[in-house]
């Protein structure tokens, strides 16, 4: 089969590889119909996530048709059309049973690596480095889906691939970000980053009752898409964001702030350049340029929600501001399985049509160019869907 393989920083190739096989009796094999490139795939593309190996198959947002199931799989059968959550979860451990699916105890076969780095290991993810399990990803014609009874969700034929594909990651990720921001009616929510997760966070914040959403980015088409979602926008390149947010909130500051940017933040001024330099010489692995601003801008007693991916260490983290303002910090990989059903319902009732996010539709073979376009934010690229 054809698969998108990682060979190094900025080196992604479409290669012919063996078809995946059932390795455990709880596995299923899915013939991929649509798969997307995620902003977090760019962290792999840019070489910021450790534990990648030449030849690793990328991709963690995919859907398709079940073609084979292991003998212990009970809820799926060949022919089912499913969306696969990016989080691989056993469904039996204490974390899964408490709904903290991305923290599964059993799904990372390389758990010791993450343990060495983080103290404990979360679950495994598709196509996201050996640190997180080393699973072959879904940017391929076929994918092996472990723990098939506690992941994939069957989707009705009446909904198109582009309407349901983003249940695999970015829609639940944006939604959980908004949910973790503990939005109450009347709240003003500020969201840094208008990529796909930010876009879904904007819409989710309104679904959860936010009074107003203010979105921050610098790319014109992303700001326009945020405005189309009902957000007021700020371009951080020509605005002092912290001051502007104060002004827009009557001097209080936003009630909840969401960092949908993560480890490769851009910024302006000396602090941003400082982070770039430190990351370049590995004094810090992640650039917290956006996160610092989020913390600075948040009102007293507010909540900060971080769906943006961080992998390692950051410098000059303003813990004093968090402490002095009594902020709450909520983070973590998305517990996708917890959101599949409620969000599929939202899509089915027409509360939201996630296909608005798609700007590029390409065949799988054109993935290397698509990574480049997405990374450079060329050609108005916000979300790429590859058809396998």
């Amino acid at each position, binding site marked *: *089969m054809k*698969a998108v*393989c*990682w*060979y190094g920083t900025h080196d992604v*190739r479409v*290669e*012919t*590889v*063996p*078809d*995946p*096989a059932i*390795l*455990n*009796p*709880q596995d299923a094999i899915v013939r991929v119909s649509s798969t997307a490139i995620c902003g977090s795939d760019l962290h792999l593309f840019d070489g910021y996530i450790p*534990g990648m*190996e*030449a*030849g*690793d*198959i990328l991709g963690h947002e995919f859907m398709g048709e079940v073609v084979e199931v292991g003998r*212990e799989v009970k809820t799926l059968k060949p022919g089912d059309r499913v969306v696969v959550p990016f989080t691989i979860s*056993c469904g*039996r*451990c*204490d974390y899964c*049973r408490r709904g903290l699916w991305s923290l599964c*105890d*059993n*799904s*990372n*076969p*390389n*758990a*010791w*690596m993450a343990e*060495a780095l983080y103290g404990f290991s979360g679950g*495994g993810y598709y196509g996201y480095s*050996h640190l997180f*399990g*080393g*699973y*072959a990803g879904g940017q391929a014609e076929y994918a*092996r889906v*472990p*723990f098939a009874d506690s992941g994939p969700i069957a989707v009705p034929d009446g909904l198109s691939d582009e309407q349901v594909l983003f249940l695999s990651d970015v829609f639940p990720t944006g939604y959980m970000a908004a949910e973790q921001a503990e939005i109450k009616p009347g709240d003003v929510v500020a969201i840094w980053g208008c990529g796909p997760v930010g876009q879904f966070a904007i819409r989710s914040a309104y679904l959860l009752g936010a009074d107003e959403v203010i979105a921050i980015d610098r790319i014109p088409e992303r700001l326009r898409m945020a405005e189309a979602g009902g957000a007021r926008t700020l371009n951080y390149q020509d605005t002092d964001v912290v001051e502007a947010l104060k002004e827009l909130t009557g001097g209080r500051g936003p009630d909840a702030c969401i960092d949908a940017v993560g480890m490769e933040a851009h910024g302006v001024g000396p602090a941003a350049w400082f982070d770039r330099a430190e990351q370049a010489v590995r004094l810090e692995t992640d650039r917290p340029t956006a996160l610092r601003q989020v913390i600075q801008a948040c009102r007293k007693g507010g909540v900060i929600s971080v769906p943006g991916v961080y992998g390692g260490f950051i410098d000059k983290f303003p813990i004093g501001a968090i402490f002095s303002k009594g902020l709450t910090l909520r983070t973590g990989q998305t517990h996708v399985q917890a959101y599949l059903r409620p969000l599929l319902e939202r899509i089915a009732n027409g509360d939201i049509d996630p296909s608005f996010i798609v700007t590029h539709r390409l065949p799988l073979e054109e993935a290397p160019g698509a990574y480049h376009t997405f990374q450079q934010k060329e050609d108005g690229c916000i979300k790429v869907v590859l058809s396998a």
Partner: protein
Amino acid sequence: MTEQPQPSDNGTQPSVTGTRGPSWLPPVVAGVVALSLLRWRTLRRLLAAGAAAAVAYRVADQSGLVTRLRFGRGPTPLTVTRAVTIARPRQEVYAFWRDVTNFPRFMHDLESVEVTGERTSRWVARGPRGSRRAWDMEMTENRLGEVIAWQSVAGSPVWFRGTVRFHDAPGGNGTEVHLTLARLSPGTLGLLSGPPPAQQVQEDLRRAKQLIETGNITTTEGQPSGPGGGTHQVERIAGILRRIAAAVERARDRRSPGETTTASP
């Protein structure tokens, strides 16, 4: 995940408290004075000799020679304890561990276990360079739902002891499993090999948890990857790191030897 507290070796460790000034100060002062009197070439030679001695010591240490020299002919059984919580009732977890034939499914290097009697079983383990080693184990303790212990019978080529204890996790959230392993076996040139590295015990427990909770061991073995890939660079680096970690652990354990009372291999 705690190391078993090791009983201290009374009398052999000089007490640090009560001495005047730090104990490292006099040798350092003497060393600085001596070095200042030496010529540069002599100094270089001394440094080179020191480095060579350090390398030689590492090699000797790795091979177990140091242990043997320090503790005489007898073995120095060293224990490793690790714990995991399994989201199943205590009796079920106990029943899994009570059946020794389950062990090769999750224990590192263990190839097979055959039940040979009410309390006895024959264990076969993979050794270095494709070798195999077989020995008989006897259950020495068994309290329903609480503890099981095994020990290699006298005269076995391998000295091995394992104890597993079960406790209810707080709030009825499953069962805590505390596994203590001690093992010694002759390695290269008959020198002692060390105890199982703690990392390995941790991995064994992790696999046991996967088996009990999900019925299978989580794997990616056999999945596709792109051509020219599959160099298993990560696994290779991991192997090196594991060996270093095991060596460090062994060195640390040696400084505080545990039970030294047990049978000879």
